């Protein structure tokens, strides 16, 4: 067996353990719950839930038939059904094409499929530094980008590529 080089050993990064979405508990289509839900496992909701849901580092799935009005805190959240409320996720929020979601999302990552019905606000971890560049009106000088003299709309217009 070949021996690992020092370089390989030095630069091996520990991989973050993904949160499994396999549900430990399913709230069925004909179940209605009003109140708080707190758990240490993955949960799928196909029924109706109103209240607050806390799943710490676990996965919450609002299934295709799920009707949820709740404040949600979880590791990851997948929405395929109807959800009104605010989501705070440690990692990722996934909104599928069948979802009807209204509320706020705070998470590290997000995935939204085309076709999802959304009225939402989204806050993710930001990455880029603030730059000192501004858009000037056509009659102002100092257009400060690498753009090749784009013309103002009042004039002839500019050609893209």
């Amino acid at each position, binding site marked *: 067996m070949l021996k690992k080089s020092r370089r390989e050993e030095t630069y091996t990064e520990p991989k973050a353990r993904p949160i499994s979405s396999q549900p430990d508990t399913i709230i069925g289509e004909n179940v209605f719950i009003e109140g708080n839900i707190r758990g240490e496992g993955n949960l799928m909701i196909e029924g109706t839930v109103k209240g607050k849901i806390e799943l710490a580092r676990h996965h919450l799935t609002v299934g295709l038939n799920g009707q949820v009005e709740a404040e949600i805190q979880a590791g990851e959240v997948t929405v395929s059904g109807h959800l009104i409320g605010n989501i705070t996720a440690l990692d990722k929020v996934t909104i599928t094409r069948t979802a009807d979601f209204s509320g706020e999302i705070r998470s590290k990552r997000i995935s939204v499929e085309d076709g999802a019905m959304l009225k939402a606000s989204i806050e993710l971890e930001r990455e880029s530094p*603030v730059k000192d560049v501004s858009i000037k009106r056509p009659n102002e000088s100092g257009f400060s980008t690498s753009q090749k003299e784009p013309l103002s*709309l009042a004039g002839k217009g500019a050609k893209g590529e």
Partner: protein
Amino acid sequence: MRSHTARLRESQANEPRRSRYTSHALRLFTEHLENQTDAQLLDVGPVCGENLEFFARRVKRVFVCDMFLRLDLARRKERTQNQAWQDLDYPPNSFDGITLWALFDYLDDQGISALVARCSYMIRPSGILLAVVQDEHHIVDPGIQSYVIAEDFDVFRRPQPHLSLPSQRRHNRALLGMVEPFIPLKSFIYRGGIKELLLQHK
């Protein structure tokens, strides 16, 4: 689990290269937003995960209210457009920027008036609208497409077969006459008749 980059590469691989372009308006719009403190952006659709993530990494908060879906729903249920516009119920001076990907192309004159009035109410002073419209002479209508942001401000189009709205092509001057109280800052024209407009609130 596939990463955002992997999904982006996959979707781009299926996209004809010729329909991609580097968006100058997007770059300027983004720089404007990044230059604001705690900037807030509104995207009125079509909902596109790549775009939401792109902006959410760069501004304080991204709001999304897909008007394409709402207008389509109103049309299918034979309701008036007024009900759809009521969903744009954000407080005044909420946003530093609003993206109007292709929406002007699917609104009649009354719809544009309603949209511009809402945008004027919701946008902050000196806030910017980014609008993309199809040139009136390019009459090929492949249906509603989203404008998907890729790397380095490249943009490509992706069909949205679940949406159906009648398209409305109009002359540039006609459109600009309808967007008061916004004034044109920049415009860019690309192959295929794609036009980008940056409009600033007076």
